[in-house]
Every structure is written in C-alpha cells, then in structure tokens.
C-alpha cells in the first residue's frame, strides 16, 4: 500500500514538469504552427544553469532568462521563416536540437552531473517529499502566471487574439511578429524553469530534454492546441499514468502503455480535451 501511494507524488511531480514544458509547446504550436524539437534543449539549458549556479532559487529566474533568450534567438534566426509549415520546423528544430546537445557535451562533458539539492528540501510531510512538493508548487505558479498574463495583461490578450485568428489580429492593428517573439520567449523560459525542477529529482546530462520532449508533445496533443485547461489536465493525467505504468510494469513497457492510451484517447477525441468553439469556426 505505501509503495502504491509513494507513486502519487512521483506521478504528480512528473506531471508538473511536463506541464511547465508543455505550456511553451502548446502555445508555439497553437499560435504559430511550429513543432519545436529544440524545446527539449531549453530544458537542458535550464538544468545546466542550475548546475553552474549551484543555487536553486537564483537558478530559477536565470534559467528562465537563459532558455527564453535561446528561444528568442532561435525564433528570430530560423523558425519565423517557417511559420505554418510544421514539417519543415520539425526537421529544422530537430537539427538545432542535435547541435545544442553536442554543444552541451563539448561544454560540460558527456557524463551526467548531479546538482546537490538544497538542505531545506530534504525530508517531507507524510508521503510527500519536499522536493516533489516544490516542483508541484513551481508548476502551479507557472500556470497561474501564464493565466494572469493571458487574461489580465494587454500583451496576453493580444496573444490570445493571435492564437484565435492571426489575420484578424494583424488587421486589428496587432503587431503579430512581436507577439510571436514574446510567446517564444516565455514558452522557452518556462522550459528552462522545468529544467531547474528536474535537477531536484535526477541527474543532468546533454540528452535530458529528449526524455521529456515526446511526453510533453503528447500532453499538447491530448490537451488541445493552445489550451491552458487542457494542458493542465493532460499533464497531470500523463504524469500519473507514466509513474503508475512504470510501477506496475517497467520503464520501457510504461512508455508503450502511455502511447497506447494517448492514441486510444485521440481516436475518441481527435481534437484533444478542449477546442476553441465558435460560430465562426463551426
């Protein structure tokens, strides 16, 4: 029984990390039709930032900035020329992803490194270890921040407008290029924060991002493109599914189970959990 319960915080914290990663992806995909495989390397960059700084709390904002700027540079230099061409962006960003992983290998070496967890995160309450709680708190803060940004700020409302109807947004006087840059910056920055979170539950290596990027894409597809609510529910569900599938079988079989469940779900709801509904679109 306790072993079964112990999987709960593990599943929830994996879900929390997936959520932080998927938030960026769901908006770049929903808003710009970009499949950004290099998003995983922003996670890695965030994790190495925590490794270099050696201080968890300082690493959070710095990792956000580092990963955010990487995303911005990638968007301006390459991706913006391929908007609405998902397959081209997939190949392009996959290449970028491999280059960034090699760069990390050159800079930090191929072996994994360990980031020591701060002493104040040792221990826990009941079945909930503090480090896992901290990660969940981080995801909650991330979602609340994104929600406030989207619904309570001018720029966020513009972002929503671009997601809903890019041409209409442009002809309403919105500088869609700037909104795209900002979305990329914030989305990539959140991946950096996810990377910092991951240093609390495992070692850091050049391929860190590749372990999470596929699951994060599953969250995006299952949750519905550009949908905050959908991403939250799908991330929690996938995190729990992952950890319990692993608990009852083994790591590789768990992946198969997760894939099978998501594919079965998409057979029933191809549009994901939530979609944008309106008379204009129906």
């Amino acid at each position, binding site marked *: 029984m306790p072993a079964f319960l112990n999987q709960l915080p593990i599943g929830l914290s994996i879900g929390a990390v997936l959520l932080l990663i998927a938030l960026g992806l769901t908006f770049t995909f929903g808003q710009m039709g970009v499949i950004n495989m290099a998003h995983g390397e922003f996670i890695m960059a965030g994790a190495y930032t925590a490794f270099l700084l050696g201080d968890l709390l300082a690493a959070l904002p710095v990792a956000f900035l580092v990963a955010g700027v990487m995303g911005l540079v990638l968007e301006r230099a390459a991706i913006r020329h391929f908007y609405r061409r998902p397959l081209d962006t997939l190949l392009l960003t996959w290449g970028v992803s491999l280059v960034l992983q090699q760069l990390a290998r050159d800079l930090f070496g191929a072996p994994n490194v360990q980031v020591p967890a701060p002493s104040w995160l040792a221990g826990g309450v009941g079945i909930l270890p503090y480090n896992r709680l901290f990660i969940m708190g981080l995801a909650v803060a991330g979602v609340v921040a994104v929600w406030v940004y989207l619904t309570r700020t001018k720029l966020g409302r513009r972002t929503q407008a671009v997601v809903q109807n890019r*041409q209409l947004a442009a*002809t309403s*006087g*919105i500088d869609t290029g700037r909104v795209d840059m900002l979305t990329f910056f914030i989305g990539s920055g959140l991946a950096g924060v996810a990377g910092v979170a991951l240093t609390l539950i495992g070692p850091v290596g050049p391929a860190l991002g590749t372990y999470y990027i596929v699951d994060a894409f599953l969250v995006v597809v299952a949750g519905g493109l550009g949908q905050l609510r959908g991403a939250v529910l799908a991330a929690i569900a996938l995190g729990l599914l992952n950890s319990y599938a692993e608990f009852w079988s083994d790591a590789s079989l768990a992946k198969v189970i997760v894939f099978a469940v998501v594919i079965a779900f998409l057979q029933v709801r191809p549009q994901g959990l939530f979609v*944008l509904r309106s*008379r204009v679109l129906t």
Partner: protein
Amino acid sequence: MLSVTGLESGYGRARVLFGVSLEVEPGQLVCVMGRNGVGKTTLLNTVIGVLPATAGTVTFDGRDITRLKPHERVRLGMAYVPQGHQCFPTLSVLGNLLITVEAAKQPRAAIDAALEVFPALRPLLKRSAGHLSGGQQQQLAMARALVTKPRLLILDEPTEGIQPSIVLEIEAAIQRLHAAGLAVLLVEQYLDIALRLADRFVILDGGQVVRTGAAEELHGEEVRRLLAV
C-alpha cells in the same frame, strides 16, 4: 487617398490578381463587384497587407505602403472588415473592442463613438462574441474597425449571410459613415445595395478590372450583364 497600381498577388504559385489598378478619393465610396472567385477578397487582402503583393504598388495618402505590415497600415488610418463576420470568439464584445482600441493606440472614447453607430451592441457588451448571431458579429466587426478611427474603411461583403433586418441596419450605417466623410472600399454582391451606396464601381473578372466608372455612368442593366454568369 488609396491608389492601387498594377497589383498582382495570389496563393503560392496560383496567381489570382493580374495587374489590378483602382483609386479611392477621400470621402468616396468605391464598390468592387464581380462573380464568386474572381479575386475580390484577394484584392482586399493584398491592399491591407495580409497577402504580399507579388507586383504593383499600393499607396495611401501618397505614401508607398506596399511592403508595410497590416498593423502598420491600420495605424496609418486603414481599417479592414474581412469577409465572414469574424471576431475573437472567446473574448467578450467589449473585449473585442478593447483589444482593437489598444492595439491601434486610440483612446477609449473611440469605443463610445463606435457604439453610437451600432447601438444594438450596447446591451451585448458583456456577452462572449462567439455566441452572437452572424448579424451581431458583423456589427461588432464593423465597430471594431471603427474604433481604430480609420480614414479608409475596407469592407468585404458586409451583408453576406446575414438576417435581412440587420442587413438594413448595416447598409444604413455604411451610408451614414460615408455621408460623414469616411472613404469606403466596399465589396458587395447585392446589386441593389451597391447601386444605392456607391459613388464609383470597379468590376473585376478573372483577376482583372473589366469596367470602372461613376455610378451615373454605369446603369444597373450594364452591371447586371457584366456580373451575369
């Protein structure tokens, strides 16, 4: 005020416009007509910059705007109401107006001015725009265009697929705005409405201008013949 010269554009390799030229003088209402699929929407999309021009120029107040982004053209005083009463469905009616007024850097008072033109929107301000009827959405779309304080209003089939009572309101609103001095570039498929509103006609066929003239020069019969399938 708006001058389009030798405009060509299309989608990928498919060219739709083959050298279209037209003028809109200040305060004038120019109506573009033509059969389905001749390129009317393509023309307006290229004029506002949603589609890039592959050849030709667009000038506004004597300034070459052919390479400007749509939002830059909006800030110069052009407003566009696309075909199909489009709005931001998850935002409220007021939200739709606010986002546009902010983006166009106009004062909030511009919303009140737009609601004077479309008073029917007032009781709906808190409603989600996605839940309005087509006619209400079209009025919202036009109000959204007005809050940018345009000097040229570009309308693509504002009466298409809209309940008859609201068609009358929309026609009256266009009439009033035009009478107040606003220049309008209008695409309209109903000949009777076009004949009542337009100062000039531009008739498109196969991506080219086949006839243009002042309303008096062009009799209903002739237009009807040019538009006949």
